[in-house]
C-alpha cells in the first residue's frame, strides 16, 4: 500500500476542508482564493514529482498512477487554478457561501483527478459522481431563476446519464464477472469470437457506457443540456464545465476503451465507427446551431459541442489504429490541452467584459477593441485558436488530430471536419468583427482586475506557446499516452 502515491489527492482534499473551515473565521474572503490556489499548486508539485516514474497502482488496482493520469491531473489542477483566479471578482459579489464556492471547485477538481486515475468500474462511478455533484451545486450558485433552472436540468439529466452508465457497468460486470479494467480485458480476450458475438448484452453494456460518458463530453445526442446549463451557470463555472469536465470525460473514455475494450480488434473497429458517426453529427450540429446564437455563452456552448466532435475524430482514428499506436491518444491529449487554454481564455475575457457591460449578448461587445484593446486582442486570439487558425494552439491541435485520422484512412471524416472548421469561422469571427469594427456603445474604458489579467495572460501565453512551439507539450502528451498502467 503506497499511500504516498495518493498524496496529491489527499493534499487537495485537505485544502478543500481548510477553505471551508477558514471561511468561518476570515473576514477577507479573497484570502480563500489564495489558499485554494496554494493548495492546487502544492498538489501539482506532488503530482509533478511523480512524473516519469514507472506506472504503479494503489488500492488493489483501483487507481492507476501512470503518466497518463498524471498528465490529466496536472491539466485539471491548472484549469482549477485559472477558474479560481477568474472567480475572484465574480465571487466577491456573493453575500454568502464564498468558502463553499471555492471548496466545491476544489472538490470537483479532486473528483476529476480521480476520474483520470480510476481503472475500475465502481471507482469510476464514484469519481464521476463526486465531480458531478460538486458541479450541480456550482451551476446553481447564482440562485437566480436561470441559474437554478440550469442546475436542476443538469442534475436531472445527469442523474439519467448516471443511471444509464450504471446499467452499462452492470451489464459489463454481468458478462465478465470483473470490475477491474485490466481483468475485464483478460476475460474478453479469453472469450472466443463467437462467444462475444452471442452476447449482445456485452455490446449493449458498452453502448450504454458510451452514452453515459457521452453526456460528460457533450457528444450528440447526449448534449441537450449544454446550451441551457452554459447560459445559466456562473461564467467561471461554465468555463470549468466546458474545459475540465469535458477533459475528464475523455480521460475516462480513453482509459476504458483502451484498457478494457481495446481488444480484440474487430470490436475496437466497431466502436471506432460509432465515434466517427458521433463526431460527424456533433461537429455539424454544434457548428450550425452556433451560427444564429446571439448570446456568447450559448454560442460557446454549441461551439463546445462541435469541439467535442473534433475530439471524437481522434477517438475514431484510435479505433482504426493498432492498440500499440500511442499517436492517436497523444493527439487527443494535446487537443485537450490546447482547447483548455483557448476556451478558458475566451471565458475569462467574457467575464472581464461582462463585469462591466452586464450582458452576454454579442452585439453589446460592439467596439470593445476601442474600450479594452488588450481584452479584445486576447479574446480574438482565443477565438482564432478555437477556429483552428495559426499561429494559435487550435491549429496545431486540429492538425495533429486530422493528420492522424488521414493516416488511418479516415479521409472522408477529415474532409467533413475541415468543412466544419470553415463554417465555424463564421460565428467566431462575427464576435471579432463586432469587437473591432463595431461602434462602441460608450467611450468608457473597460478595466479588469489583476486576478483576471493574470489568468488571461496565462491562457493566452498557453495558446501561443502551444501554437508556435508545440513540440514540448506534444512530447509530454506522447509520454502520457504511452504509459498506461492498465
Amino acid at each position, binding site marked *: 500500500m503506497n499511500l504516498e502515491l495518493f498524496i496529491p489527492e489527499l493534499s487537495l482534499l485537505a485544502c478543500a476542508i481548510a477553505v471551508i473551515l477558514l471561511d468561518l473565521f476570515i473576514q477577507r474572503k479573497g484570502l480563500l482564493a489564495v489558499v485554494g490556489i496554494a493548495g492546487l499548486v502544492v498538489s501539482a508539485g506532488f503530482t509533478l514529482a511523480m512524473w516519469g516514474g514507472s506506472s504503479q497502482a494503489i488500492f488493489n488496482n483501483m487507481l492507476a498512477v501512470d503518466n497518463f493520469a498524471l498528465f490529466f491531473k496536472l491539466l485539471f489542477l491548472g484549469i482549477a487554478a485559472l477558474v479560481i483566479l477568474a472567480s475572484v471578482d465574480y465571487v466577491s459579489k456573493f453575500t454568502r457561501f464564498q468558502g463553499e464556492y471555492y471548496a466545491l471547485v476544489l472538490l470537483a477538481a479532486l473528483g476529476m483527478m480521480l476520474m483520470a486515475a480510476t481503472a475500475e468500474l465502481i471507482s469510476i462511478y464514484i469519481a464521476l459522481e463526486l465531480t458531478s455533484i460538486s458541479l450541480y451545486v456550482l451551476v446553481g450558485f447564482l440562485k437566480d*431563476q*436561470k441559474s*437554478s*433552472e440550469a442546475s*436542476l*436540468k443538469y442534475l*436531472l*439529466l445527469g442523474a439519467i446519464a448516471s443511471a*444509464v452508465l450504471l446499467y452499462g457497468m452492470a451489464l459489463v460486470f454481468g458478462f465478465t464477472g470483473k470490475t477491474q479494467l485490466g481483468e475485464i480485458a483478460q476475460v474478453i480476450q479469453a472469450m472466443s469470437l463467437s462467444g462475444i458475438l452471442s452476447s449482445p448484452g456485452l*455490446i*449493449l453494456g458498452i*453502448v*450504454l457506457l*458510451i*452514452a453515459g460518458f*457521452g*453526456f460528460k463530453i457533450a457528444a*450528440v*445526442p447526449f448534449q*441537450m*443540456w449544454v*446550451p441551457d446549463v452554459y*447560459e445559466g451557470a456562473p461564467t467561471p463555472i461554465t468555463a470549468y464545465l466546458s474545459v475540465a469536465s469535458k477533459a475528464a470525460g475523455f480521460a475516462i473514455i480513453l482509459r476504458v476503451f483502451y484498457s478494457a475494450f481495446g481488444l480484440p480488434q474487430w470490436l475496437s473497429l*466497431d466502436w471506432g*465507427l*460509432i465515434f466517427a*458517426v458521433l463526431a460527424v453529427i456533433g461537429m455539424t450540429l454544434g457548428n*450550425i*446551431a452556433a451560427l*444564429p446564437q446571439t448570446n456568447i455563452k450559448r454560442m460557446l456552448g454549441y461551439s463546445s459541442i462541435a469541439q467535442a466532435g473534433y475530439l471524437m475524430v481522434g477517438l475514431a482514428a484510435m479505433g482504426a489504429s493498432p492498440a500499440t499506436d500511442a*499517436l492517436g491518444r*497523444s493527439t487527443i491529449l494535446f487537443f485537450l490541452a490546447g482547447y483548455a487554454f483557448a476556451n478558458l481564455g475566451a471565458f475569462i475575457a467574457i467575464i472581464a467584459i461582462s463585469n462591466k457591460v452586464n450582458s452576454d449578448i454579442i452585439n453589446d461587445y460592439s*467596439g470593445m*477593441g476601442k474600450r479594452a484593446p488588450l481584452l479584445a486582442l486576447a479574446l480574438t486570439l482565443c477565438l*482564432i485558436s478555437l477556429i483552428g487558425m*495559426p*499561429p494559435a494552439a487550435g*491549429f*496545431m491541435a486540429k*492538425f495533429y488530430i486530422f*493528420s492522424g485520422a*488521414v493516416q488511418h484512412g479516415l*479521409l472522408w471524416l477529415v*474532409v467533413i471536419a*475541415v*468543412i466544419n472548421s*470553415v463554417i465555424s*469561422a*463564421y460565428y467566431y*469571427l462575427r464576435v471579432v*468583427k463586432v469587437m*473591432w*469594427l*463595431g*461602434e462602441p456603445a460608450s467611450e468608457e474604458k473597460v478595466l479588469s482586475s489583476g486576478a483576471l489579467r493574470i489568468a488571461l495572460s496565462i491562457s493566452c501565453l498557453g495558446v501561443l506557446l502551444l501554437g508556435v512551439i*508545440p*513540440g514540448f507539450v*506534444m*512530447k509530454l502528451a*506522447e509520454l502520457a499516452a504511452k504509459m498506461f498502467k492498465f
Partner: protein
Amino acid sequence: MPYELVWLIFLLPLFSFALISFVLRPSLTHKPRVSGYITIASLLSSLALSIWALMEVMAAPSHNLAIPDISWVIIEGGITIHLGLIMNSLTAVMLLVVIIVSLMVQIYSQGYMHGDPGYHRYFAFMSLFTASMIGLVLADNLLFLYVFWELVGLCSYLLIGFWFHRPAAANAAKKAFIVTRLGDFGFLAAILLLFSNTGTFNIAELHSLAITGVLAGTVLTWAAIGIFAGAVGKSAQFPLHVWLPDAMEGPTPVSALIHAATMVAAGVFLVARTFPLFEHSVEALTTVAIIGGFTAIFAATMGLVMTDIKRVLAYSTISQLGYMMLGLGAGGVAIGIFHLFNHAFFKALLFLGAGSVNHATGTFDMREMGGLRKVMPWTYATFVIASLSIAGIWPLSGFWSKDEILASSLTSQPILFYLAMITVFITAFYMFRVVFMTFGGNYHGGGSEAHDKPHESPSVMVTPMVILAILAVFSGFWNVTGHFGALLGHGETHSFTEGFFGILAHPLPWISLILAGLGILLAYAIYSAKWLSAERIRGFFSPLHTLFYRKYWFDELYENVLVKKALIGGFFAGLQQIDTYGVDGAVNGVANGALASGRTIRRAQTGQLQLYGLFIGIGILAIVLGLYFFG
C-alpha cells in the same frame, strides 16, 4: 556571411511588429511617427539582406542555398516537421518584390496616414503582414507555408477593416475572408492528401517525388488542383474573384501592397513554388492556363465600365493575375513569375497614384476628377508611365513580360492566345480611360468643398512613386537577354532573347503593340478629344454595358441565390426551426413560466426536460440499432 542571416530577413519585420504593438504603443502615444520609422528601418535592413541573398543565389551553381533549419515538431514514429527555409532563385526574386514594394508603401504611408488616430496600429499590422509574406515566400514545407498563408489572410482582414466607421469596410473584410477560405479549404485538403500519400510536407522532397514519378496519377492531379484552389481564392481568380473589388474599401496603401503587389500574387507564387506537381499532371496544368486566360479577359471587361478609380485597378489586378496564371500554365515558372515581378511595381505605382489623387480630391469617383495634369504633374507623369507599362508599350517593363506570355500561349494554348490578345486591347483602353478621365479635361470639383483646389501630394508620397516609376520602366530589362529566365531556370523561356531592338524584328510584338496603341487611341477619341460620345457608345452597347457594370451578376448570384436563398433561407432556416421549437422553445418556455423555484421544478418536470431525457434514450437506441444493422 553565414547563411543563417537569411532568417533575419523574416525576423526583422516581425520584431518591428512586436516592438510597435507591445512596447511602443503604450509609451509613445504622443510620438506616433516613431512606429513608421521603425518599420522602415527594419525593412531597409531586410532589403539589404535580401539583395545580398540574391547575389549569393546568382553565384551559387544550382541557384540554391542550403539554410540550416530547426526541428520544429518531432513525434517519435509519427511526424517530424522541420522549420526550414528555401533560398533559391524564386525566393530571392519574390523577396525583392515583397520588400521593395512594402518599403515604398510604408514611406508613402507616412504622408497618407498622417494624423490618423490608428497610426501605430496601421504600421504594426503592416509589419506583421510583411513578415508573414516574407515567411510565406521563404517556407520550405507546405505546412509552414500554410501557416503564413493564413496569417497574410488574417492581416488582410484586419487591414481592410482598418477604417472602423465604414460598414462597407467591415462587410468587405468579412467577404474577403470567407471567400478566400473556400479556396484555402482545397489547399489544406491537398496538403493532407499529399502527406497521407508521401509522409512529407517538405516541398523539395515533394518535387523530387513528382519528378521521379513516385507521386503520380489521380493523387497528383487532385493534389495539384487542391493547391490551385487555394491559389484561385488568394489570387482572386474566377470564380472566387468577387472579394477583391470590395476589398478596395481598405486604405489605399494597403490596397497597393496587399491587393496589388504581394498577397494576391501569393496564389501565383504558390503554383510556381509547387510547379513540378503541376508539370507532371497535364490536367492540372491545363486547368491553370484556362482559368488564368479566362479570368484575364473576364475581369478586364468589368474594368471597362467602373467609375471608381480603385475598382478599375482592382479588376485590372485580377486580369493581370490571370495573365500570370496563363503564363505559368502555358510557359512555365520563369514566364509567370517575370510578369509577377514587373506587375508588382507598376501596379503598386498605379495604386499609390490613385491614393495621391484621392488625397487631393477627396474622392475615388473619376467623374468628379479631371484636369489634374497641371496641378499634380508628378502624380500624372508616374501614373502615365505605369499605364504605358501595363498596356505593354515597348520598351517599358510590362511589354517584356506580357509578350513572353503571349508567345508561350501561342504555341501551347491557341484559343487562350486570342483571348489574351483581345485583353491587350481592353487593358490599354481602360487604363487610358482612367488617365484621361482623371488627369485630362477640366476639374469637376472633387469629393467635397474642401477639395475645390487640388494640389500635388507632399514629397514623402511622391518620392516612392518616382522610385516605383523608375522600376516600372527598367525592371523588364532584366530579361532582355534572357537573364531572368536563366536564373529561374524552370520552364523554357521563349525566343525573345534577341535584345533590346532585336525583339522588334518579330511580328508578334508588333501585333500586340498595334492592339495596345488602338486601345489608347480609342480612349483618347472618347475621353479626351471627344470625337466619339461616351453616352452614345454606352447606349449602343447598352446590354453589354449593363452586363459588365453589374459584374455579370456574380455578387447577386453568390449573395442572394446561394447564401440568402439556398443557405439561409433553406438549410439554416430549417435548422433554426428545430432549434427554436425543439431547443430554444423548451428553454424559453421554462424560463418564461418559472417565477419561483417550486414552479421551476413543476414546469421542468411537466415540460421539456423529458424531451431531453427522451433524446438520450433515442440516441442509445439509434446506436444499438446502427451497430446491429451495420456493425
